[in-house]
């Protein structure tokens, strides 16, 4: 939408006024920004609300762990978010080993026991709320105890560490203060008592001032450190009390150890403080003394200056500046001073005892006070010691008791396990016997069934084999018979083929020329029927002439007969007795004058008058026309005389043809019959 608006605006701008596209865009942006400001406001408000809610939840979760747990349980991925924001939940402990590593500084301290190393404990993940079994509850309780112990231990360790550090710091500071005080005192002593040239004296005084400054600073530091240490020790004490109040048994040794550490630290601190105090008192004396000396010096200087005002303060440095008068005045003053001092000394000696008594009293008081304080502290310390000892002994006793109970329990458990083992052994044996029996029976069953099955299988197999063998034999026989039959069939087929060939060769006749010699075909036929007597006889029955020369077809014979007929008609009257030329003439005349039917159906029985040649010829012609060569031949055979002689060849040919045809048809019929016979089922 924005883009469309921009485009539209651009287009209009370009079209209208040629303004720079930048301003146009700005306008557009204004326009569109104005339009969508409402939506942006809503979106911004929503985002702010959501962010505020999330932030508030995180902060509250940081403060209230129960809330955090509830949120983590109910809101998915909140645990990740809270972990990211606040760190893991406070139950997770970290492996820490506290070593007080400045043992060499506190050689006189007790042996600081190392608190036991706490192992890392993973806080229990949010388990689903369900009925937990006893072991789980116990485990959880134990885990909780462990966690508490860890917290206590860690807190104790923390406090111990901090207090140890503070104590060490305090002790160190006190030691440095002590050293500074000692240095200062020493330098002060030196400064006062040593007889050194004046320049070095000023240096010494400067050193002294520096030492004093050091001492004051060191004392201040020691004071602050002491305060810190006391604070830390107090907090440790409170922590120990708090942990004692938790009543977790496993914490007790830790608490004990912490208490002991605390006690030791307190003792050390006290010792050092007493040392510092003694050093301070010493230094006080020395400073008092130095003050007195300074005062005396000042007094003396005042006196000297009152006497000799022009002499400078540092009178020790003056050697050649004094005149004799000054020296005399000085000596006189010195004498006077000596007298005064002697008098004061005598006074002092007198007052000495009183002073000493007073100071002794004071000292006694102070000593008593100190003693009391020391006694108090010592008593406290001893009380602490005894209490700690008592606690330790108690814990030891508890440990011993626990160990003994554990051994007893172990013994009982061992006895129980032995008993259970025995019982189990007996049971095992019984079960084994049962199982073996069952196994044996099952095995027997299986064996018998297996044997049965295998026997059955064998029988079946033998049966199958036998049947297969029988069938095979049958098949072989069938095949053999088939082979034989096939052979027969083949032979028959061959015979038939050869006969067909013969038949065909009969047909290979052209008009007026005989067929091919049938020798080849007849030979083929003879070959194809070696073992067949009938066929062989038939094959050999073929007339020789047909074999060599072939036979004429019926058509040619017919045609020939037609030409013969006229001739036979012409010589019809000529026979053995009547065969003169005159007869010939007569017969020719007769033939010219006699008209008979061209064809006449022959009767079934020939009577005498049917033997007339003309009639015979017409009958024969009829027969030939109707394809009956045999009858025609028979009829022609009835011709006598010259007609007979004339048709003799024709007759022979007809006889040949008929013979051959008969033989061939017989052979063909036989071949067909044989073929049919062999192709049928035997």
């Amino acid at each position, binding site marked *: 939408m924005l883009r469309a608006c921009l485009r539209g605006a651009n287009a209009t701008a370009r079209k209208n006024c040629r303004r720079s596209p930048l301003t146009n865009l700005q306008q557009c942006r204004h326009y569109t920004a104005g339009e969508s400001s409402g939506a942006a406001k809503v979106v911004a408000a929503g985002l702010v609300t959501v962010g505020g809610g999330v932030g508030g939840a995180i902060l509250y979760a940081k403060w209230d762990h129960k809330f955090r747990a509830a949120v983590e349980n109910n809101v998915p991925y909140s645990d990740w978010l809270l972990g990211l924001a606040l760190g893991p939940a406070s139950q997770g402990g970290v492996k820490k080993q506290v070593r007080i590593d400045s043992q060499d500084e506190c050689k006189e301290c007790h042996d600081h026991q190392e608190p036991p190393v706490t192992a890392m404990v993973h806080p229990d993940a949010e388990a689903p709320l369900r009925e937990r079994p006893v072991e789980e509850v116990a485990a959880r309780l134990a885990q909780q105890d462990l966690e508490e112990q860890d917290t206590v231990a860690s807190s104790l360790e923390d406090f111990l560490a901090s207090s140890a550090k503070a104590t060490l710091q305090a002790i160190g500071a006190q030691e440095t203060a002590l050293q500074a005080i000692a240095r200062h005192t020493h330098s002060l002593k030196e400064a006062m008592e040593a007889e050194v040239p004046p320049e070095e004296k000023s240096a010494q005084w400067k050193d002294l001032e520096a030492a004093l400054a050091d001492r004051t600073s060191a004392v201040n530091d020691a004071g602050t450190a002491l305060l810190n240490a006391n604070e830390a020790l107090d907090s440790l004490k409170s922590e120990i009390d708090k942990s004692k109040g938790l009543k977790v048994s496993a914490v007790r040794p830790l608490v004990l150890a912490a208490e002991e550490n605390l006690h030791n630290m307190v003792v050390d601190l006290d010792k050092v403080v007493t040392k510092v105090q003694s050093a301070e008192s010493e230094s006080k004396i020395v400073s008092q003394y130095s003050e007195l000396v300074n005062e005396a010096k000042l007094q003396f200087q005042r006196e000297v200056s009152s006497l000799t005002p022009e002499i400078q303060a540092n009178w020790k440095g003056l050697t050649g500046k004094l005149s004799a008068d000054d020296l005399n005045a000085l000596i006189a003053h010195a004498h006077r001073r000596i007298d005064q001092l002697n008098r004061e000394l005598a006074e002092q000696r007198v007052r000495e005892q009183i002073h000493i008594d007073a100071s002794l009293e004071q000292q006694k008081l102070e000593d008593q006070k100190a003693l009391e304080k020391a006694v108090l502290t010592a008593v406290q310390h001893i009380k602490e010691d005894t209490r700690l000892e008592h606690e330790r002994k108690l814990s030891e006793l508890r440990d011993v008791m626990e160990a003994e109970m554990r051994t007893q329990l172990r013994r009982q458990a061992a006895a129980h396990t032995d008993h259970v083992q025995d019982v189990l052994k007996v049971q095992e044996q019984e079960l084994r016997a049962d199982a073996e029996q069952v196994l044996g029976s099952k095995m027997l069953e299986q064996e018998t069934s297996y044997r049965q099955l295998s026997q059955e299988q064998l029988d079946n197999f033998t049966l199958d084999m036998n049947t297969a063998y029988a069938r095979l034999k049958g098949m072989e026989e069938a095949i053999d018979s088939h082979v034989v039959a096939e052979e027969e069939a083949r032979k028959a087929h061959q015979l038939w083929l050869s006969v067909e060939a013969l038949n065909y060769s009969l047909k290979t006749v052209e008009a007026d020329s005989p067929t091919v010699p049938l020798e080849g075909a007849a030979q083929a036929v003879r070959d194809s029927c070696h073992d067949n007597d009938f066929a062989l006889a038939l094959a050999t029955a073929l007339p020789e002439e047909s074999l060599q020369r072939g036979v004429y077809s019926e058509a040619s014979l017919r045609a020939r007969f037609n030409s013969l007929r006229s*001739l036979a008609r012409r*010589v019809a009257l000529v026979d053995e007795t009547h*065969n003169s*030329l005159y007869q*010939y003439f007569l017969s020719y005349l007769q033939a010219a004058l006699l008209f008979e039917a061209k064809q006449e159906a022959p009767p079934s029985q020939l009577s005498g008058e049917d033997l007339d040649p003309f009639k015979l010829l017409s009958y024969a012609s009829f027969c030939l026309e109707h394809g009956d060569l045999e009858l025609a031949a028979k009829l022609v055979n009835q011709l006598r005389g010259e007609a007979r*002689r*004339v048709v*003799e*060849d*024709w007759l022979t040919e007809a006889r040949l043809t008929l013979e051959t045809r008969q033989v061939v048809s017989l052979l063909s019929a036989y071949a067909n019959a044989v073929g049919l016979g062999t192709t049928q089922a035997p």
Partner: protein
Amino acid sequence: MSEKELGKKWDRCLADGAIKVGTGLGLGIVLSVLFFKRHTWPISFCSAAGLGMAYGNCQSDLRSSYLLHRNEKEQ
């Protein structure tokens, strides 16, 4: 072939007749001319004689198939 035999016979007959008649004729003519003072009777006589001989031959030829010949007998 047997049917052609007759034809052949007739051919021979005719040929023989023609020869004999012609020979007769010729002889007749010769004789008539020579011996018989150009009478026609020797011509006709000789030609008839020739014809008669031819007839006789023809007939015997035609009959020969019905007669048993010596070599046939021997066979």
